[in-house]
């Protein structure tokens, strides 16, 4: 159902998910949410499946009109969301009634916010993902950023109003961001192409995020990183977070929409979790690099995944959902039964006909 109407598109609003995997060998970028941590959190708040598509909102947010009753969550950059002009919470599941206007303003802190809708943005998957691939103009909503007048399909809209409104993140879920963003890196794969002084400069220096930053990558400026011989290699694969250093010695960090191969030396690779943090950095942000070992990186990944596991575990899912179709006298009726979190709901053709009252015993 086309449950969201774009009244104002914002600076760059795209449909994104976990990303598109398995197609690098055909030159197809990963794409996906730039800040996967915020994106996943938004989906968890509205009880979505892992990997449901959401909207990535950049810099300045859109205005969207609900054409059905929806449950949404806004996570990531602080964009002072309003519903019909009244402030609403970020980092929480909120209900929006059909006809109401949801507006996200200019980013006050961070750069990208994620708007998850219960049921997910229901665009057709292409090459295994609903992410918008801007460089090749496919996937997401017609392969492009949203425009005024677009009507976005939402999965099972109106049939899945869940009692999740009011869910909010536990305090301390987000680490406080200091003045300097520290990015943990694993040296390599071409660290042997840099001088000792070059590596020292990279690990000791403070770099600034330049205005040249987009979904493909972020350019930094700071102490130059010296190569032994040259900056060019025989092109090879470019992982998320790769720190490319061209001949000018200034690093470029590759992000979601990066090319799948590159011909510049890569001194190091930023771990995934910190690449997501970088996706929230504004121009001028101070950045430092901190070298860690492979076991430390794996421990960090385990801790990161553990946080999501705990969050999901704390919010029981509406696991049991059955739909029946009855045909009587040539007429079809769709009956849905949902049960979970100590509550139940019965619907007919998407409209609730009976649900548990507050405090009603099961």
């Amino acid at each position, binding site marked *: 159902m086309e449950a969201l109407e774009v009244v104002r598109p914002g600076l760059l609003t795209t449909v994104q998910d976990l990303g598109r995997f398995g197609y690098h060998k055909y*030159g197809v970028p990963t794409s996906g949410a730039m800040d996967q941590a915020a994106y996943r959190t938004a989906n968890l708040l509205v009880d979505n499946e892992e990997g449901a598509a959401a909207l990535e909102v950049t810099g300045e947010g859109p205005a969207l009109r609900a054409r059905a009753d929806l449950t949404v969550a806004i996570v990531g950059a602080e964009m002072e969301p309003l519903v019909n002009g009244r402030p609403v919470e970020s980092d929480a599941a909120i209900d929006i009634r059909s006809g109401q206007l949801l507006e996200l303003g200019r980013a006050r802190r961070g750069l990208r916010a994620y708007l998850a809708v219960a049921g997910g943005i229901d665009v057709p998957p292409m090459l295994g993902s609903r992410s918008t691939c801007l460089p090749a103009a496919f996937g997401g909503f017609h392969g492009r950023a949203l425009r005024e007048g677009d009507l976005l399909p939402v999965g099972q809209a109106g049939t899945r109003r869940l009692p999740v409104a009011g869910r909010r993140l536990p305090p301390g879920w987000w680490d406080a961001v200091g003045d300097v963003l520290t990015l943990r890196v694993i040296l390599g794969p071409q660290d042997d192409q840099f001088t000792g002084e070059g590596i020292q400069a990279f690990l000791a220096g403070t770099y600034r995020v330049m205005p040249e930053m987009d979904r493909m990558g972020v350019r930094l400026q700071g102490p130059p990183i010296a190569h032994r011989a040259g900056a060019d290699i*025989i092109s*090879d694969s470019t992982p998320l977070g790769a720190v490319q250093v061209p001949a000018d010695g200034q690093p470029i960090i590759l992000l979601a929409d990066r090319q799948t191969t590159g011909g510049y030396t890569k001194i190091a690779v930023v771990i995934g979790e910190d690449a997501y943090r970088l996706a929230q950095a504004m121009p001028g942000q101070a950045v430092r690099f901190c070298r860690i070992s492979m076991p430390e990186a794996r421990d960090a990944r385990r801790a990161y995944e553990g946080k999501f596991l705990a969050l999901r575990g704390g919010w029981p899912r509406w696991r049991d959902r059955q739909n029946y179709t009855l045909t009587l006298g040539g007429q079809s009726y769709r009956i849905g039964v949902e049960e979970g979190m100590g509550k139940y709901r019965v619907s007919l053709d998407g409209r609730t006909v009976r649900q548990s009252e507050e405090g009603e015993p099961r």
Partner: protein
Amino acid sequence: MAVRFLDAGESCLVVELGDRIDIALNLHVRALCLAVERATLPGVQEAVPTYRSLAIYYDPLAIDRDVLKDRISGLLGSSGGEGGQRPKLVEIPTVYGGEYGPDLEFVGRHTGLPQDDVVRLHAAPLYHVYMLGFTAGFAYLGELSQRLSVPRLSTPRLRVPAGSVGIAGTQTGVYPLESPGGWHIIGRTSLRLFDAARKAPTPISPGDKVRFVRIEEREYLKAAGGSP
């Protein structure tokens, strides 16, 4: 050169088989890639073959890096075969010159060759597909005749139509999508090199062979559905 295992972050292991651009070496990369795909190792998400190395993306919580390295080492010894996946020959029907190849005249002047010879030299070889990258569906081909070597454009074009066939240095390739570009454009193909609606989004795979086949404008128009 000995095989090198290089970490590229916490979830990518690069297996470097050499340090040069060479078809035999590249075929080893391809064979290893197919072996890794066939082995369906737990936690391995995708394998990306490039000129001289294979990047293996994995979930470090599902498979230990050293275990993965051992498994790959085992495959290295036994990955000689193609596993029934022989490289394909992909023909690229190309209309040369005119509005489709606005730089053919320049290439002729720069190389001192008649335009027909430029086309013949371009269409003669069976090009090896080393890898795909740069953009979706773009194949890195080797190797263009030295006699056709021209520098890149001093000012790249902002808009090169999809299907444009370009040359620069000893490289040739096809722009799968409309994009900016700095290569000299000598022709255009009606073959769709990237289609996200298909499971294999491009007709070309790493390790395939490619040949450009000269066609006339009317054949191009017919194949391209009537509009250039």
